[in-house]
């Protein structure tokens, strides 16, 4: 099965990449855009298993490795 983990900065953590992209878009006249935050999307191919079991596994690796809980949050997407 294939899963995705989305890692993003917590609110309040400075995201200079997002800020820079936002400023360039603004300079190009995109006034309708209010903010940009850049994160990571991690694709994971794993054994077929029960959804709850997969969720538990992905939560564990996300919490311990894929995201730093001090600065980031994560969201898991399962099929």
């Amino acid at each position, binding site marked *: 099965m294939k899963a995705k983990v989305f890692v993003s900065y917590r609110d309040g953590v400075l995201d200079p990449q997002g800020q820079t992209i936002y400023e360039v878009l603004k300079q190009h006249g995109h006034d309708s855009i209010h903010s940009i935050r850049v994160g990571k999307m991690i694709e994971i191919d794993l054994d077929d298993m029960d959804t709850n079991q997969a969720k538990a596994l992905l939560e564990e690796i996300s919490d311990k490795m*894929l995201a730093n809980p001090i600065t980031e949050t994560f969201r898991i997407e399962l099929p």
Partner: protein
Amino acid sequence: MKVAVVTFPGSNCDRDCIYVMRDIFSCEVHNVFHKEASLCDCDAVIIPGGFSYGDYLRAGALAKYSPVMKAIQQFAKQGGLVIGICNGFQILCEVGLLPGALVRNRNVRFISRNVELRVENTETAFTSAYEQEQLLWIPIAHAEGNYVADDKTIEELESSGRVVFRYTGPKRQDVPDGNPNGSINSIAGIINEQGNVLGMMPHPERASDERIGSTDGLGVFRSMITSLQQDASYAALTV
């Protein structure tokens, strides 16, 4: 005096640290590869700068899982002196030996230049060779040196003298406050609650030989050696 200098894939300041400890301070140096599960017997551990695992995922995030890190965590728990420089600081935060995290520099750039640091606390095992509020001229070289932590942690660090080094300059047009990377309260280096683990972004090992411009970093290593000689509780630990 035996010092372990750890090498991860991508470490690039390990040889500088070995040079300083072996050639300048005449210490016995063990260069420990990250796959080793033991530090052998040593008095202090240096986690050098560089780009462990190419900084993939986050700086220090993958080095956390190297076998040697378990031994270092145990060594630190037993009171052994551990210093993490630059990438070493990032690794110490990732494993939780130090609080907080280091995120992208405020200006989004890799910054490689000398900065002015102020010694904020000389009553530590890493700073006793300095004068209080002494100003140091030491290089930084990092893209993720912007120290962040929650308000409570910052308050704790500040009120207990655990902010050991702070950026003070040079003040430039792009850095009017002399804080090159945007760290909260211009924090450049902190110690843990027990005082035996230091993390700092600036590179004292690159400011330890007159031939390369500054010897202001020597005090960090000299302080460690003095602590080890004076304090029996820092006697060699076998981990």
